[in-house]
C-alpha cells in the first residue's frame, strides 16, 4: 500500500531559469543543464587580454572549428561536478581495493621478473605522457568556448593526473623509486620513447583548443589506451600470468571506455555542423593519428617485439572504424 504524505502545496511561478527555458522550454531543468548551459559570460566583455590583445577574453575565433552554438557539444554522460566526482570516487574505491589485493597477497613479487620488467618498461614512462595530457586538457578547459564543451576537459585533466598518479603507484609497487627514476630517464633519453615525447611536446605548443582536443583525446589516447591497456596489459601480459598488472590498470581500461563516448559525441556534432568543420577535423585526425601510430610503435615493441607492427596496424584500423562512425573518414 502506498501512503501519500500530505505537504503544503503551492504553485511555482516558473519551472526554470530564462536561459534554459529558451533552450528547452519552461520545464524543470536537469542539474546538468542548470550547471552547464550559458554559465560563461557571453557579452560585453570588458577588456582585451594583456597576454594576447588579439583575442577576446572568451573567444570562438581562436579555433578553426566554427559552431553556431558551442553549447551543442553535449556530453552524453551529462557530467557536472557532482556526478563526475561520485563516478570517480566509486572507481577510486575499486582501484584502491585492487592495489590492496595485489599488495597484500604479494602478487607483485610473484610476477615472473621478465614480465614485471616489461610492465614497468611500458607503463611507467607513460605517467609523463599522462601529465602532458593533463596540461592539454587544462588548456582546452581554459581557452575553449562554453561550459558544455570545456567542463568535461577539466574533469578529463584531473583524470589524466589521476592516471599519472596510479602509474606512479604501480611503478612504486612493482619496482620502487628506482622504477620511476629509470622510467623518467627512458622518457628523456631512450630512443624508444623519443617519438612519443616529441609528439607530446609538439601538442604542448598548440594553441587551438579544438586541435589540442583532437591531437590528445582523439588521436593519441584513441590509439594508446586500446594498444597499451587492452592489447599489452589485458591480453599479452595477462595471458602469460601477469594479470595482477591488469588489476592495477583497470581504472585506465574502464576510463577509456567511458570517456571515448564523450570524445566521439563531440566529434560527431562538430563534424555534422558543416563541411568545413568536417574537413578540418579530417585533416587533423589523419595527421595526428598517423604520427601517434608511429610514435607508439617502438613502445609496443617493448612488449610485443616483432608483432608490434601488426598490432599497431590493427589498432589503427579499429581507430578508423571508430572515427568513421562520427561521420569523419580518414
Amino acid at each position, binding site marked *: 500500500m502506498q501512503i501519500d504524505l500530505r*505537504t*503544503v502545496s*503551492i504553485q*511555482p*511561478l*516558473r519551472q*526554470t*531559469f*530564462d*536561459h534554459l527555458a529558451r533552450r528547452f522550454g519552461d520545464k524543470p*531543468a536537469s542539474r546538468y543543464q*542548470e*550547471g552547464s548551459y550559458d*554559465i560563461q*559570460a557571453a557579452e*560585453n*566583455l*570588458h*577588456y*582585451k587580454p*594583456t*597576454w*594576447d590583445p588579439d583575442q577576446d577574453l*572568451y573567444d570562438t575565433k581562436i579555433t578553426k572549428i566554427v559552431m553556431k552554438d558551442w553549447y551543442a557539444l553535449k556530453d552524453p554522460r551529462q557530467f557536472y*561536478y*557532482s556526478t563526475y*566526482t*561520485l563516478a*570517480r*570516487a566509486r572507481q*577510486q*574505491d575499486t*582501484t584502491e581495493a585492487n592495489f590492496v589485493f595485489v599488495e597484500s597477497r604479494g602478487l607483485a613479487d610473484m610476477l615472473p*621478473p621478465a614480465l*614485471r*620488467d616489461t610492465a614497468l618498461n611500458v607503463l611507467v614512462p607513460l605517467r609523463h605522457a599522462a*601529465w602532458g595530457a*593533463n*596540461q592539454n586538457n*587544462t588548456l582546452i*578547459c*581554459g581557452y575553449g568556448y562554453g*561550459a558544455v564543451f*570545456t567542463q568535461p576537459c*577539466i574533469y578529463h585533466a*584531473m*583524470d589524466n*593526473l*589521476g592516471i599519472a*598518479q*596510479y602509474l*606512479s603507484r604501480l611503478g612504486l609497487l612493482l619496482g*620502487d623509486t628506482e*622504477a*620511476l627514476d629509470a622510467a623518467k630517464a627512458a622518457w*628523456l633519453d631512450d630512443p624508444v620513447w623519443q617519438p612519443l*615525447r616529441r609528439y607530446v*611536446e*609538439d601538442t*604542448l605548443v598548440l594553441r587551438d583548443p579544438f586541435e589540442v582536443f583532437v591531437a590528445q583525446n582523439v588521436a593519441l589516447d584513441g590509439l594508446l589506451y586500446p594498444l597499451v591497456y587492452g592489447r599489452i596489459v589485458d591480453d599479452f601480459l595477462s595471458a602469460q600470468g601477469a594479470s595482477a598488472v591488469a588489476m592495477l590498470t583497470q581504472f585506465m581500461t574502464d576510463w577509456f571506455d567511458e570517456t571515448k563516448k564523450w570524445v566521439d559525441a563531440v566529434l560527431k556534432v562538430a563534424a555534422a555542423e558543416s563541411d568545413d568543420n568536417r574537413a578540418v577535423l579530417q585533416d587533423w585526425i589523419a595527421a595526428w593519428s598517423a604520427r601517434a601510430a608511429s610514435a607508439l610503435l617502438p613502445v609496443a615493441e617493448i612488449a610485443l617485439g616483432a608483432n608490434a607492427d601488426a598490432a599497431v596496424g590493427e589498432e589503427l584500423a579499429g581507430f578508423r572504424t571508430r572515427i568513421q562512425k562520427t561521420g569523419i573518414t580518414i
Partner: protein
Amino acid sequence: MDMKATKKKLGLKEKYRVMTRDLGWEPGYHTKEEIFPYATYEGIKVHDWDKWEDPFRLTMDAYWKYQAEKERKFYAIIDAHAQNNGHLNITDGRYLSALKVFLQAISPGEYAAHKGFSRVGREFPGVGTQVACQMQAIDEIRHAQTQIHALSNYNKYYNGFHAFADARDRMWYNTVARSFFDDAMSAGPFEFMIAIGFSFEYVLTNLLFVPFMSGAAYNGDMATVTFGFSAQSDEARHMTLGLECIKFMLEQDPDNLPIVQGWLDKWFWRGFRVLGLVSTMMDYMLPKRVMSWREAWEIYGVENGGALFKDLARYGIRPPKGWDDAEKATDHMSHQIMLGLYQWSFGTSLHSWIPSDEDMAWLSAKYPTTFDKYYRPRWEHIRKLAAEGKQFKNFGLAKLCQTCQLPIVFTEPDDPTMACHRETTYKGEKYHFCSDGCQHVFENEPEKYIQAWLPMPALFAELEGDIGKWMDWVSLRDGQDNGDYVGSVDQRNFEQWRGLATSNS
C-alpha cells in the same frame, strides 16, 4: 632490475613529490618559452620553480573520495529543502534580495574563477603550482554549480532570479563584479594569482563568504548555508594557495616586490569596491542581521588583514595604498549604496525598501557617528514622500565610475557632506571616478580601462534611452522583479504561502 626485499617507505612530502612534480620534465623538442608563453611578460622573475612549497598535498584519489562525500551530503540536503518548501522557513521575503545579488553577481564570478584557474593551471611553468591551480579550477566550477543548484528552487517561487545569466552580462550593477573578474582574467598569470588567489580568496573572502553564509544561517536559509559549509574546506585550500603564491613570488627575487605591491594596491581597492554590495546586504538586506558591516570590517579587515600585512612586512610589503580610505568609507558605504539602489530600484532585478523604525534604530546603534547625522534624514524624507504616495525615484541615469563601475555615490574620505568625484583626461577623452583609488587604478593602466563596457552609455547608444526596451533587453520584468519590496509580488506570495504553512486559515 633486481627487486629489493623491502621497499623504501616514502614520507608524505616525498610521496607527493613523486606523484606530482616528478611527472614534469625539461622539454627537449621545444623551448619552455614556447610551451609557457605567458610566464615572463609581467616581469616577475622566478629562478627556481622547485622552491614552490605545495600548499596542500592531495592526490587525485583522495580528492575524489573527500569531495564525493561532501557532494552526497550537499545534494541530500538541498533535495530535502526543495521537497519540503524550505524557502518558507526564511525569516522574511526581504532576505531574498541578498540571494539575488549573490546569484547574479557572485556565482558568475565563481565560474570566471574556474576559467581563470584553468588558464593559470596551464600557464605556470612549475608542476606543483599547476596542480594546485587546477584543483582550484575544478573546485570553482563546483561552487558555481552548487550555488545555482541551491538557488534553483527559489527561482521557481520568487522573481528576480530567473534571468541571472542575462543580468550577468547586461545589468548595470552586475558590471561591478563582472568587470572585476574580467580585469583579473585579462591580466597575466601572476597578477591573476594576486588578484583572485591572494587578494580575493585570502584578504577579502572572509568579508564576502562569512557574511553571506552566516546571513543564510541566521535567516533560516538551509540551502545556502549548506553550500557554505560544503565549500568551507575548499576555501581553506584556496587561501593556503593564495598565501603560498605571494610568498613564492616575493622570495624568488627582490625585483618582484614593487610589482607585487602595485598589484596588492590595485586589487585591494578593486575588491573593496566589490564588497560595497556586501556591506549593503549585511546592513540592510538581512531581516535578522549577523553583524554590521563595520563590525565585520573590524574583525576581518582590521584585525585579520592587519595581522597578515604585518606578517608580510618581512618581505617589504606594506598595507595596500587604499587601506586608510577604506577605513574611512566603512561607516558610510552601505548607506550610500542602499540609497542608490532604492532610488534606482525601478532598474534592479531585486527589491529594496525603506528601513523600518526598528531597522533605523539598529543602524544608528551600529553607526553612532554617521547614521543619524547623514542618512536617517534622507530615509525619513524618502519615507515621507512614500507616505504621500510618491515613491522616490531617480530616473536620471547614474554616472558610473570608469574603474569599479559603481555609481558615483560616495563622499570625500574626510568630508561626508561632499560628494567625491574625480576625473582624468586621457587622449582627449574625459573619464570619471568615484575615488582616488579608482582613479589611480585607471592611471596605471589607462589602455585597459578605456575599454570598459559601461552600461549607461550603452543604454543610450543601443536602445535610444528607452527604459522599456532596456528592461526587455536585460530580461527585467517591470512590476515583478524590480521596485520596492512593499507591495511586491514576492511579498504577497511569501506571506500568503507562509500563512498556508503556519496557520489554518
